[in-house]
């Protein structure tokens, strides 16, 4: 959470996350280079440069696959949320690994011609009219540029400056990057494989990304739109509320509102965290503050404000109980506007929601 920007906001969990990630990268490279040459059909690599290029390229593909699996996995099962917590460091490391792969390629295959190596990279293969032999390098270059954009705009400053929706749209480049990496591999090294283990691993990774994304998308579609009753929209019955938790409703304008029950009273705030638009309604209330399950940003559900000295704010909503239904007015209040919580009649609380 912001007060004044620092290069990296380290904490114990991030050190642990990064330590495990670095150990994983090191283990992958070691296994690829020294343990599995026969399994992965690269026991006769021409020289160390090519061997290293393949190792870093394979590592970047695996890292990108894992990164793309984390998001939908966390949406489908909250137990994966800890992996989401510091995913940006994972992405930055992936960009460095991909850059290392590109450096090995550039400084071996294109470094000894009479022309500039970057020019050589662009004109060495111009077989655009055929699939077999298509200049697959271009897919790799595009993916690398995407990864560099994502890595260099990962600091929290960019989220606040660009706004989370613009930042998210920019970071949708990850999908184009992954497709390009798959194309880079499919029309590149896959054409040269005589051992099917590599092919199976590659296709399995891509299939995992596809299945998880489509499953998360399908699950998201199931969320109902809140029923409309005049200007107000119905969210839930009082008996459906649980103390310290929220019900999330999608309004007719597409926005999502999170209605919380705290100490027997109802409050409604935007479901979109001011940081990365994480789902606040899936967070738990501790000491009057809801904690975003993605990165731990906290807000007072009565005001939509982060506790001092932090300055983040989210919109709040007016709320009422009408004809036995909890209703929210769809017009959001400006971020940080206090709204008096609405008491939930004791007789209408669920057993779980009953106060001690």
């Amino acid at each position: 959470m912001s007060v004044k920007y620092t290069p990296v906001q380290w904490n114990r969990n991030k050190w642990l996350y990064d330590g495990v990630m670095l150990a994983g990268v090191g283990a992958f490279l070691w296994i690829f280079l020294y343990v599995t040459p026969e399994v992965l059909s690269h026991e006769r690599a021409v020289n160390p440069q090519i061997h290293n290029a393949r190792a870093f390229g394979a590592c970047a593909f695996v890292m990108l696959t894992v990164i793309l699996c984390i998001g939908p996995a966390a949406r489908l099962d909250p137990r994966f949320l800890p992996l989401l917590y510091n995913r940006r460091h994972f992405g930055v490391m992936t960009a460095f690994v991909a850059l290392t792969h590109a450096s090995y390629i550039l400084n071996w295959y294109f470094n000894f011609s009479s022309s500039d190596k970057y020019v050589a990279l662009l004109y060495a293969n111009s077989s655009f009219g055929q699939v077999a032999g298509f200049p697959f390098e271009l897919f790799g270059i595009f993916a690398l540029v995407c990864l560099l954009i994502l890595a260099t705009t990962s600091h929290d400053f960019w989220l606040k400056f660009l706004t989370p929706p613009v930042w998210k749209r920019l970071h949708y480049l990850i999908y184009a990057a992954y497709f390009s990496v798959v194309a880079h591999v499919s029309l590149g090294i896959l054409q040269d494989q005589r051992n099917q283990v590599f092919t199976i691993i590659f296709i399995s990774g891509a299939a995992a990304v596809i299945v998880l994304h489509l499953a998360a998308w399908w699950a998201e579609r199931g969320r109902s739109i809140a029923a409309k009753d005049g200007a107000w929209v119905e969210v839930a019955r009082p008996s459906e509320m649980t103390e310290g938790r929220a019900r999330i409703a999608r309004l007719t304008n597409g926005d999502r509102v999170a209605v919380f029950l705290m100490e027997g009273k109802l409050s409604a705030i935007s479901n979109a965290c001011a940081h990365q638009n994480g789902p606040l309604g899936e967070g738990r209330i501790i000491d009057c503050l809801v904690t975003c399950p993605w990165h731990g940003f906290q807000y007072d559900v009565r005001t939509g404000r982060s506790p001092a000295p932090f300055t983040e704010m989210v919109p709040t909503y007016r709320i009422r109980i009408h004809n036995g239904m909890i209703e929210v007015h769809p017009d959001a209040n400006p971020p940080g506007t206090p709204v008096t919580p609405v008491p939930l009649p004791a007789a209408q609380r669920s057993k779980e929601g009953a106060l001690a």
Partner: protein
Amino acid sequence: MDVAQAILVVIQAWGIFGALTAAVFLTVGIERVDEDAQGAYVFRPLLIPGVMLIWPLVLWRWWRIESQRAGWAERYKPVRGAHGAAALLMSLGIIAIIVTGLSVRQEWPGDTAPVQLSDGASQ
């Protein structure tokens, strides 16, 4: 000048404009658009590569904020709705390109035992 060299010239020009934008934005602009950046200097070099890569977007946002065209509500419009289309397009693209790659592969399935097509010289 051939196409490859022209592309590199465009990339170099992009980088020069990006560097100029970074120099102005990170010394003058950043404190005007974000109060959390006031007095914070150590993190600014980290932003240089990003500004160089997306400088048109930086200038656009800077202009939006300076001219007070940026409404508070636009910050709270998650783009989850586009996720489904993005995931679907990526999935279809991946399937298509893998099938294409496998279909043009010279050795498929790999390690197929050689088959003698004719009796040849032994006949």
